[in-house]
Each structure stands twice: as structure tokens, then as C-alpha cells.
């Protein structure tokens, strides 16, 4: 969030509410759960870290004392670093993988059933994202984000299929032995 807010300020200095409006346009329905105060908390942290500087302006009569935020030189540098960074959030597969192994070893639960429950949960998420995508106008930026959400969930579902196959055959071997 901090990096995204900094990068938005690279275009031009802005009020908090202007940044919030831009975030919501990009995220569409996915941004609806965002806490309205989050942007101000983020800006305050960035200011404290010396990455942005806020200047009070007279603003409009009905909205007095607005702060306009601008990047500092350090902020500019951080934006450049963020843009050239190639990190990628890691999906949390190991935890589920270990859960299956532990459940099977201690005979606490049937791994195949755990996989089934996880699969149903992911399918519900695909449904939610897909329905939100259908409600977006063609070509909206939020539609593109929802597309990414759906594709990642599909990859997870494919992995769950592999888990199901593997743990089902482990069962058979167990019974045969």
C-alpha cells in the first residue's frame, strides 16, 4: 500500500481524498472494503519516514485545511526502486501442504476431505470474483485485476487436483498393505 501511494504521487502532488478516489477507480469493487482512513494513516507514516511532505493549503471553504502531499527526493528514489523491483507475492502453499501431511500422519483427518473442503472454498471465491467481473463494464481496470484473481485461483485449484490424486492413491496403498 505504501509503495502504491508513493507511486501515485509521482504524477503530481495530491490531497488524500484525491489519492483515495484514484485507488478506488483502479480497484473497483475489490476496493470497496478498504477502510476510508487507511490512506491518511499511510500518508502520515510516509511523512514520518521523510518520503513525502505535506503542506497545508487553504482549500475550499467547506473543506478547510487540506494537506497536499508531495514526494521528497527520498520518496522519488523509493518509487524508482519499487518500479524496478521484480518481487512477487508468494502463495501460501507450504502451510496447506504441511497440514495435509500432519493430518494424515496423526490420522486426525482425511487429507482427501481436507482438499475437498479447500476446493469448495476456492470455488466460492472464483464465483465471487467471476460475478464481480461480469458486473464490470468491458475494459474496466478493475476487470483486469479480477481476471488476475480468477487465474490465480484456477492455478490453486489445479494444484488441489494434484493433491487429491496423490492423497487418494496413498490411501489405496495404505489399505493394500
Amino acid at each position, binding site marked *: 500500500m505504501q509503495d502504491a501511494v508513493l507511486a501515485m504521487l509521482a504524477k503530481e502532488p495530491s490531497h488524500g481524498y484525491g489519492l483515495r478516489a484514484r485507488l478506488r477507480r483502479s*480497484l473497483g469493487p*475489490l476496493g470497496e472494503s478498504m477502510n476510508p482512513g487507511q490512506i491518511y494513516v499511510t500518508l502520515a507514516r510516509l511523512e514520518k519516514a521523510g518520503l513525502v511532505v505535506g503542506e497545508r493549503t487553504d482549500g475550499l471553504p467547506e473543506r478547510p485545511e487540506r494537506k497536499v502531499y508531495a514526494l521528497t527526493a527520498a520518496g522519488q528514489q523509493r518509487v524508482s526502486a519499487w518500479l524496478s523491483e521484480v518481487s512477487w507475492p508468494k502463495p501460501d502453499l507450504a502451510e496447506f501442504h504441511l497440514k495435509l501431511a500432519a493430518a494424515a500422519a496423526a490420522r486426525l483427518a482425511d487429507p482427501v476431505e481436507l482438499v475437498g473442503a479447500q476446493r469448495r472454498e476456492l470455488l466460492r*471465491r472464483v*464465483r465471487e*470474483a*467471476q460475478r464481480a467481473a*461480469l458486473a464490470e463494464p468491458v475494459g474496466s481496470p478493475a476487470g483486469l485485476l479480477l*481476471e488476475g484473481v480468477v487465474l490465480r485461483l484456477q492455478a490453486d485449484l489445479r494444484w488441489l487436483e494434484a493433491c487429491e490424486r496423490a492423497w487418494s492413491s496413498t490411501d489405496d496403498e495404505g489399505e493394500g498393505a
Partner: protein
Amino acid sequence: MNGPAAVVGVRGLAKHHGQGQSLVRAVDAVDLEVPRGQMLAVMGPSGCGKSTLLHLLGGLERPSGGEVWLGGRRVDTLSERALARLRRRSVGFVFQAFHLVEELSAAENVELPVLLAGGSRREARRRAGRLLERVGLTGRAGHLPSQLSGGQRQRVAVARAMVNDPLIVLADEPTGNLDTAATLEVLRIFEELRTAGQTLVMVTHDERVAATADRLISMRDGMFADDTYLAGSHGRGLGGLIGLDG
């Protein structure tokens, strides 16, 4: 088993191919009821029997055993002729490869089932016009299939499936030949049908297509491995999908 709410129901439904050692149980004694207005998706690996199930539901194939009920009538015991008549009037099919008549315009393709069911030309034109409007293709009514995009062709096929106001629409991999944008076009039409209370069963290998349904059945080796109702939120809101909820 076939209460008034069930549009289609099967009991002990089986379809076998071959015999002896080479006997293949494509569909192996399944029970199913699809209530009016439900959108059901059937998924599974290729060869799991999902397409065969769809063909049995629509009377395109005869079962080796069990019963098929459609709109409160037992249909697996009907004569070929009676079954063909029932299919024309009560079942709408949508196929992966569209199956449009290439020599006919979009409008003529949609009119065809009305004429085959004994409707007048005027009635056919009126109904086709209404359906093409519903799928957003009024401006393409005079085009040949070859002049339409994949998504538009499938929308014509959906209009054709709907034109006789069927009890049920059966769709076999309806987005199998379509790219993402065209898939969304077809899913938007399905969503409109769902809202209008149309009963629909589709077979698909695409989770995102299946997930738009109300209910999802997973098939393995001719049997139902899972039967899940998908409606209802996972409880975290859309923001949770991208980690915005912290």
C-alpha cells in the same frame, strides 16, 4: 422422486459401452434432481462421463438402465418419434462448436427450431427477433455465422436454444472454443438467463465457467464425486481476494 419443483430427474441412470472385460461404465447408476430455475455445472476430467450424462438428460442418447424424467414425464421409454418431438419443444442445446447452419443468417438459424416445431413463419420471425435482442445481436440478424465472432456465434446458438421457451437448456462445453473476452460475453447471457429463472445444466472443464453456477457436481468414473452448492459468500468480501482486508 420427481416432485413438481424438479425440471429434470434421473434415478439409477446408467450408460454402458461394450461388454464383458471391455465393459465401460460411462455413467454408473447416478441419481439427480435439478429444480426449476437452477443453474447446474458438471465438471470432471475427460472421459468421466459428463457429456454422456448431458446427452442422456436431453434424450440424445438412450440409457442402459435407470429412468429419466423431464417436466414430470418419463422420457427414456418414449418412442424415437415422441422423443424427438419432446427434444424440439422442451430442450435447448448449446454445443462447444456452435453447430449453426453456415448457409443461414443468424436470424434464420434462430427461427429454425420454431419452424421445426410446427410454428408459422411469422411466429418464428417474431420469436427470433425477440431472442436476438435478448442476446444483444439485433444488429447482426442478417449476418452469416462466418461473418460473426466466436462469442457472437455462441450467442446466436444460445438464442436458438431458447427460442422455443424450453424447460431446460443443456450446454456442452459452451465456452470451450472461446477466448476470455468471448467467454465473458456468453457468461453474461447465462447470468441473464439465470436471473430470468431458466433451468440450465452445463458441462465444462473450466472452473471459472462452472463457478458461475448455483451448484457444482464433480464426476469421476461415471459417478458423482462431489455435489456442492456454491451460492453464499466465503465471508471475507471482495477485498479479501486481494488481501486488502489485512
